């Protein structure tokens, strides 16, 4: 299966032999050309666009190249709450997904090892959401959380929710949606590391006077760290750039808009390309900084 894509660098560090490098060049060239043309150049053009200024007396959406650095000041001033929400929601959703996904991955990867059929079945259930449209799943939650559903009624009767309160359109529902949508991305890489975890280390822990809880903290958790790091990255990065969950037609409202929504609205709605580009550049930069710090702090640079 394709789980390898979510795993950490598998197996021992391979020592690639030194061979005729022109063969390597032939193999590399098409892919690299594609990346240069459709990944690097767009990033450059995004940066260039972010400095553009409107054409004088031009139509909406007409811009010319300039060095209008004020675009950045403008978007930061206008959209700083969107950034805060994006990263705030993404962090909370990542933590929630970790808390849900880790025990699930542990159960499937370690506890179900003696029953391969059950293990395969449960794993299929974890990836099952991938097989059904992301948008429809999110809409399903919207409808399950709508004001007149039994769930909301029950919460109201228990006074968890005020009588005039809503579930949809709140920070809660957006974070809920983000957690839900990226949970498999959290669970799978953790599963891959835990599935390979040698239970003899746990026996060694028990042999050396460590209680099950201590063994978990001192042995299991550190050994599954690569999976946790990949999982949190695969959750945090898309969550912080997401604009579906926070959109008003899905689980969000005007009060829950994230940076993604601002980029989408500026680019596709207002045709304000420079500001959309500036927002994208800032978002990308912030994510790279956060990811860089995170990876360095957890000491897993060699994952990349």
């Amino acid at each position: 299966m394709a789980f390898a894509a979510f795993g950490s660098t598998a197996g021992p560090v391979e020592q690639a032999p030194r061979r005729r490098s022109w063969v390597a060049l032939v193999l590399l060239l098409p892919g690299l050309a594609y990346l240069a043309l459709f990944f690097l150049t767009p990033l450059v053009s995004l940066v260039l666009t972010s400095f553009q200024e409107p054409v004088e007396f031009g139509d909406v959406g007409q811009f010319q190249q300039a060095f209008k650095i004020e675009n950045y000041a403008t978007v930061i001033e206008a959209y700083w709450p969107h950034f805060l929400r994006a990263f705030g929601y993404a962090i909370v959703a990542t933590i929630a997904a970790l808390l849900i996904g880790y025990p699930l991955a542990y159960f499937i990867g370690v506890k179900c090892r003696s029953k391969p059929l059950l293990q395969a079945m449960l794993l299929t259930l974890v990836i099952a959401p991938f097989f059904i449209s992301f948008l429809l799943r999110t809409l399903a939650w919207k409808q399950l959380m709508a004001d007149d559903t039994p769930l909301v009624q029950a919460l109201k009767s228990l006074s968890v929710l005020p009588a005039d309160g809503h579930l949809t359109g709140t920070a809660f529902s957006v974070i809920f949606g983000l957690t839900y949508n990226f949970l498999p991305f959290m669970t799978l890489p953790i599963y891959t590391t835990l599935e390979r975890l040698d239970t003899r280390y746990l026996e060694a822990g028990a042999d050396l006077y460590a209680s099950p809880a201590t063994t978990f903290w001192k042995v299991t958790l550190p050994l599954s760290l690569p999976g946790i790091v990949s999982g949190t990255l695969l959750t945090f990065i898309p969550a912080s750039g997401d604009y579906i969950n926070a959109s008003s037609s899905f689980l969000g409202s005007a009060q829950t808009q994230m940076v993604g929504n601002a980029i989408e609205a500026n680019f596709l709605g207002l045709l304000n390309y420079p500001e959309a580009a500036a927002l994208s550049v800032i978002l990308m930069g912030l994510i790279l900084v956060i990811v860089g710090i995170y990876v360095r702090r957890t000491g897993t640079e060699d994952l990349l």
Partner: protein
Amino acid sequence: MAAGAFAEAGADLELVGLHKRFPGFTAIEDLDLTIPAGSFFALLGPSGCGKTTTLRLVAGLEQPTSGRILIGGKDVTSVKSFKRPVNTVFQSYALFPHMTVLENVSFGLKRRGIADATGKAHEALRLVELDHLSARKPQQLSGGQQQRVALARAVVNRPALLLLDEPLGALDLKLRRQMQLELKAIQNEVGLTFLHVTHDQEEAMTMADTVAVMNKGQIEQMGAPEELYELPKTAFVANFLGQSNLFTGDVTNSKGDSIVVDIAGVKIEVPKDRAQRHTGEITIGVRPEKLMLHTEAPKKAPGVNILGPGRVTDVSFSGVSTQYQIAVPGIGLITVFAQNMVFGPVVNLGAEAWVSWTVDHGFGLLDEPEHTPKFSADTDTATIALQTRHELLAEIEEA
């Protein structure tokens, strides 16, 4: 074990009526065993004989189906693994890959809150002469070094009982010898009780004070290595611990201190005190190196057994000795180990030969003959390979 304190000395280990059943098979059947404090005890047996299960039961990594385990007189049967005064040197070493050598060795001490864990860990590493590598990660060490770290990690806790699960299995022959000596030295130095599980008979015999040979979940025979070797009581022990020539026949009469057994018409004497049974059909045996090879019929003499004539069917030179196979009509193949006192073989392939041995070297087994293979040749490599394959297939089938 109380936090912050070491065991003063090794403790007795007592297994009482131990049973362990897994779904589909019984690993251990009614095992009673006492290992005195301070001894180096080896459990020897082929794979699947239940020796590793016994070790895991003692370590608390498995729960017995029934029976009791006592360490130093205290019942620990229901005590969780991490609370037992026992440490294990695992077969795979199981060194934590994310910790340095030093962190590995001090792990147990820290869990028990023992003062100066790092200092004591360094001390243990000095004992195995690896203190200079204490900052390395386990995967940066060689197999032998990892084994020594695993040993230090267990010994540093001064457990009342140290369990060794074939820890030398992965090492090459030379390193293994060196480790065996080192282990023995450490045992003498720290005076703990060692329980060593192995399938290597030579390892068991060189290292242990007492060896117990295990087969099919039960102990076949137990004793000092020399005793086990010189006087095996069952065909299994006779063939698992070294090689034996075994013959089956009826006891015809007794003659002084010996019984006389009729082996295909030849009268063979076995000392009464070296035979487990004195009547009926019994299996007797003699070690190949106790046999003398003759090219002419030897003169009959009191206190000497003679078989022959036969034909030499195989001669293989192995350095110190030469192994001969002699086919004796009506009896089968007899193996002889002869010291290489002269250059070249004493007899040549196809030659006529006789064998003789002193009556005192023979032994009589306990087994019912119909259950025992008649000749030692049954345990050749091909048979063992076949058996292993059957076991493996059964295992795969189960999984």
